[in-house]
């Protein structure tokens, strides 16, 4: 009986989730554009959390090519052990190395989708523009797979990215706390899944990539 009640409540909650309405503005707002425009390598310190507690501290390396919408990524422990090496492109995610907790494959693919959501502008033109109930300007896109992506900018200039399911359930909320010059200096991602998780990312290093990487030419440590 108890399980049935929980199930009914869950269905009720899900059915109530709806895409937030956008209030039309006299002049359609300029869409916030924090996304990468050049092929860039970013290295972040990542605090991964669940249930409100930090579960792991990791180093995330992303090599993102926005023109091709391709992304390579690696996740390392602070000791340098590669837990995940994967790539993401128009055909989806491919994992080349995965150790626990990424060995299930599902978490690895979700992680790559999260990185794409953070670094790549939504494809195509926005389907609507307006203002949120809180007064933020919002541009809304149809997500490439299914669902919706909102990019919001508050009066203070801070940018948030939200991904909703087809039915309007909030699945991801990403807050970019960096400035206009460096929007990826600090990123906070909140994922609402069967098991909720969060990623708090602090930029260690970013560089535009002009040519293919060549291993072992000089040390990274001396450069800020």
């Amino acid at each position: 009986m108890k399980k049935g009640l929980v199930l009914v409540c869950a269905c009720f909650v899900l059915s109530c989730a709806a895409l937030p309405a956008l209030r039309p503005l006299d002049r359609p707002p300029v869409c916030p554009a924090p996304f990468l425009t050049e092929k860039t390598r970013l290295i972040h310190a990542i605090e991964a959390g669940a249930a409100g507690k930090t579960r792991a501290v990791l180093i995330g390396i992303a090599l993102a090519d926005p023109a091709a919408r391709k992304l390579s990524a690696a996740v390392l422990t602070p000791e340098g052990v590669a837990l995940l090496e994967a790539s993401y492109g128009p055909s989806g995610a491919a994992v080349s190395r995965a150790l626990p907790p990424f060995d299930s494959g599902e978490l690895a693919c979700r992680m790559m989708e999260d990185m794409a959501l953070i670094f790549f502008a939504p494809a195509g033109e926005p389907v609507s523009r307006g203002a949120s109930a809180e007064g933020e300007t919002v541009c809304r896109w149809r997500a490439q797979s299914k669902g919706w992506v909102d990019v919001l900018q508050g009066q203070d200039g801070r940018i948030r990215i939200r991904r909703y399911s087809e039915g309007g359930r909030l699945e991801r909320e990403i807050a970019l706390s960096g400035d206009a010059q460096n929007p990826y200096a600090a990123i906070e991602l909140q994922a609402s899944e069967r098991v909720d998780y969060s990623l708090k990312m602090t930029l260690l290093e970013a560089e535009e990539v002009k040519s293919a990487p060549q291993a072992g030419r000089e040390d990274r440590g001396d450069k800020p």
Partner: protein
Amino acid sequence: MGRTGIKILLLILLVVLPSGVRADDFAQLRREAARITTISADFVQKKTMKILARPLVSEGKFYYAAPSSIRWEYTRPLRSVVVSDRGKTRRYIASGGKMIEDLSGGVQAMKIVLDEVAGWMSGRFDANPSFAASLSEGPDTQITLTPTGQNMAGMIERIEITVSRRDAAIKTVRIVESRTAETRIDFQHVVINKDIHPSVFREVQ
């Protein structure tokens, strides 16, 4: 050539060839390492991967006290500390400006690694049946550990450890993961047999 001739030739080869693997080489290393009671050192770690244009450099401090106490502390780019003392291993990570104990499964993997490192520090390079150990002499002694089973396939191709001929202390560890990925750790400012307070292996702040 008679049987005696072949035996003499083999004996000469064993003595002359510097890279020959002989049980007494490892026994000699164990004897020399037995003189080491403590080690403290700085280390620089360089991680090379295909996704990186240049190695990712990490730095930290290493402490060892015989027979198996270790503190392996990274200070940059991220602070993390693993301490192992009396068979108990704990890992601490920096979160919100303070060090918190890592309660994930990662600590078990680190315990395996630290137990192995403690073995190396006491000269037991050939003790783990998961690796075949070979030894070659040059300006320094180099030990190469190659996985014997398939359980490390795709993770570690080989581990090369360079040991000082002067004091049997480890100078570098190079973990070759694949053709394009490796981790190299260089130990610097090595201090041997100077007292280390036991709290170093137990307390993390």
